[in-house]
């Protein structure tokens, strides 16, 4: 399975002002894997994601996506196989209606009109919001916006899904819907998040970043037990793995 791999080789990035963004990043993500990218604020999650979609070019080191090294020449090719869901859906939904927005990618890929419409419907149905098709993005709720944003990416049929904080700003039930949805995807997934409970449910593997470096890379369940590791990386055990304060108090009495 050499298809759809995402590989970083000794990745190094320094911001123009001299701050080190990424330092000796090495990983290999295989086809169909779900990987959570966690770490405190400023640990380098977003910087890493921007590298994976070719928006930032590494100061040193290489990225390979699928069969291609990521460089200027391959950028367009690579972007066809990678779908990125941005943190702020308002950045992603820029067209006048939901339909136009979801159709934007497929049209750019040169897909025939009839098929575009089918794809738009399919994508919206996958995320469970086909009824929003004629609405304007500015009139959607936060959860609806997120769902549509995911649909816009699904419509381009990417092999690899990259998501930046997909569960942020969602109410609990929208978040639950999102998690259930993500679980059904068979794509290779890279999810940058602070929501460790979601990471626990959706991603079998986790990469912990701290100050631009990978401090741990392994099975989510195993990493999240290591309280010391979590603490030094500015994290905390997922709530579902902590003892319930109500029940434990109750048992004490």
């Amino acid at each position, binding site marked *: 399975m050499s298809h759809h791999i995402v590989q970083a080789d000794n990745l190094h990035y320094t911001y123009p002002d001299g701050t080190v963004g990424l330092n000796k990043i090495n990983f290999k993500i295989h086809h169909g894997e779900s990987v959570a990218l966690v770490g405190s604020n400023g640990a380098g999650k977003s910087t890493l994601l921007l590298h994976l979609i070719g*928006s930032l070019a590494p100061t040193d080191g290489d990225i390979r996506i699928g069969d291609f090294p990521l460089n200027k020449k391959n950028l367009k090719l690579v972007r066809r196989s990678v779908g990125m869901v941005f943190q702020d859906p308002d950045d992603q939904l820029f067209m*006048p209606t939901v339909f136009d927005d979801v159709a934007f990618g497929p049209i750019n890929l040169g897909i025939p009109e009839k098929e575009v419409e089918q794809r738009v419907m399919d994508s919206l149905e996958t995320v469970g919001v086909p009824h929003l098709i004629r609405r304007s993005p500015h009139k959607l709720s936060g959860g609806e916006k997120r769902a549509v944003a995911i649909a816009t990416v699904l419509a*381009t049929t990417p092999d690899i899904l990259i998501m930046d904080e997909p569960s942020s700003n969602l109410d609990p039930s929208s978040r639950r819907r999102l998690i259930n949805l993500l679980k059904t995807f068979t794509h290779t997934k890279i999810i940058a998040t602070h929501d460790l409970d979601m990471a626990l449910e959706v991603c079998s593997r986790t990469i912990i970043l701290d100050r631009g470096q990978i401090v741990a890379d392994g099975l989510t369940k195993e990493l999240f037990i290591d309280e010391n590791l979590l603490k030094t990386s500015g994290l905390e055990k997922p709530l579902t793995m902590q003892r319930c304060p109500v029940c434990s108090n109750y048992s004490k009495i």
Partner: protein
Amino acid sequence: MSNLQNNLFDIFYIDTLACRQSWIHSLDPRAKVLTTLIFVGIVVSFDKYEIAMLIPFFIYPAVAIALADLPFVYLAKKMLLLLPFAFFIGIFNPLMDNKTLITFDLKDIVDLMEFIGFKENIGKMGTIDISGGWVSFLSIMIRFCLTVGAALILISTTGFDAVCLALQRFGVPRPFIVQLMFLYRYMFVLIDEASRMVRARSLRTFDNSNQMRFGIFISMVGQLLLRTMDRAQRIHLAMCCRGFEGDIQMLRAINFGVPETLFTAGWTSLFVILRLYNIPVKLGMMIENLLLS
């Protein structure tokens, strides 16, 4: 500030109106844009002293509001809010133009009233002179109501993106259409962002005056501008990630069929007839003849 926020609510509301279902709503936007332009063009083509002939033109907003089930009170209120500007310019007309344009002979009016049934003596006979200035002032006000009303009806039966689509089909250059779409989309987002900034500041301003010093103003506007430019970069990135290569295309089937042709041609012929024949005066003469014969 509150003014702009109200405007935003207005846009939201108008947007909602544009989503309603009616025969007019379902028409191809081109028919409505064209009809509106013709309407405005014909209304403003009248001589500046014209009043009578302008009146029949209210038929268009009236019918449109009725067919599209638009809230009349809301539209009227919105129009009233905009009135001061036309008023400001128009009010100079009565001051400058004193020439008597119309003379009412009170005797005629008394005759008429007696005919209708008033038997008392109304008083002294004489004439009332109305200067051209007042006539043209009234004319300006009527034009204002008609033209503004037509624009509001257009947008609340069509919606902004459909108007853009129509403009594009009429040959307005693509970059400008794309610009309109982006502007409209991000107006909501940025006004929201700006109002959050303003709110955050005013919550930390503890005197009641709530005045903003120039320095603070500049740093807030500057911040907003920088954030806006960052957002533009993120949007561009999001576009590139979905295969954007400099051209934005939209799939929209619109069809200028029989109903559209009927709508446009019907209204246009009516406008032209109203432009050519002074129906109110004819009507008035008819009634007069009827009464006095």
